[in-house]
């Protein structure tokens, strides 16, 4: 279990690294929770524009509790200068991980074989069931995606 804690920022704000394997182990572990995993980056304008949908009240009205995990593809040297200030400024309360992977050819397919590797991309996990969407989403589309895994 390798979770590096990158401690930075004035108030001890920290972002944890995650590998794809570690992320998948986490989101496949609990079928009573709907995991909403979004791949994004502070430098990706469409990613930033869609972030508010993950705070929609509609996510609190589902049959199962939802857990949003934002996986940032920002770069290690941007964590202090860009990622943490962004999270603080936007008041993002979701869990944020920094993706710690070197070779996209090895991990993109683990998320979804149809994924071209472009962000944003959103993944829904509930237990063993999964739904994947490449590209931006509206709240309505997010709920539709979640419906694809509901049981």
């Amino acid at each position, binding site marked *: 279990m390798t979770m590096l804690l990158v401690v930075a920022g004035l108030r001890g704000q920290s972002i944890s690294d995650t590998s794809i394997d570690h992320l998948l182990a986490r989101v496949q572990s609990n079928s009573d929770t709907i995991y909403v995993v979004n791949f994004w980056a502070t430098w*990706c304008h469409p990613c930033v524009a869609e972030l508010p949908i993950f705070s929609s009240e509609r996510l609190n009205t589902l049959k199962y509790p939802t857990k949003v995990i934002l996986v940032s593809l920002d770069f290690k040297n941007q964590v202090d200068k860009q990622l943490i200030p962004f999270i603080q400024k936007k008041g993002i309360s979701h869990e944020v991980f920094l993706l710690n992977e*070197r070779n996209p*050819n090895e991990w993109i397919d683990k998320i979804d074989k149809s994924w071209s590797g472009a962000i944003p991309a959103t993944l829904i996990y509930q237990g063993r069931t999964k739904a994947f969407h*490449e*590209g931006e989403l509206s709240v309505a589309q997010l709920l539709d995606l979640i419906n694809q895994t509901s049981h």
Partner: protein
Amino acid sequence: MAFALLMISEAFAQVKVGDKAPDFKLVNTDYTQLSLSDYKDEAGVILIFTCNHCPYAKFYEARIDKLHRAYAPKGYPVVAINPNDSVQYKTDGFSHMVKKGYEYAYLLDNTGVYKAYGASKTPHTFLLTRVNEGFKVAYIGAIDDSPQDANQVKVRYLENAISAVMAGKEADPNLTKAIGCSIKPF
């Protein structure tokens, strides 16, 4: 609904390895029009959909320069195509492309060539080789296995593919997954 249809049509448009490479005619940074068929005296073309704003494109900029210098003399010049409309990112605009002053062609795709190739992000690389009637696709995907750090590259996917085709063999792997920024087309 329209969004879903776009995704489906793009899935069908993706060229596969072995397919004929679609020709194009686009504006170059020297203000002339350039076609793929203008390269008919070359052994092939390293076609890279890339842009100015994307951090991944920036990571690869120096490596792409090196590829052109190494392989243009061997008959495989780089041809770069920017498929982005600069509405989303001003620095993807044509004047910024011109300022780059690349040694290789850097074309503006305002006609949807990226769709004909099935390019889905920047950078997205297609190695083309000359065949009788034009060019065919020999490799699609990533330049190497380490976008963020050139010093950590272990496998040079594209260069291995070039070596293979130069030796009359098939690229293996001929398809890899690359990370990049989504395309904002005209």
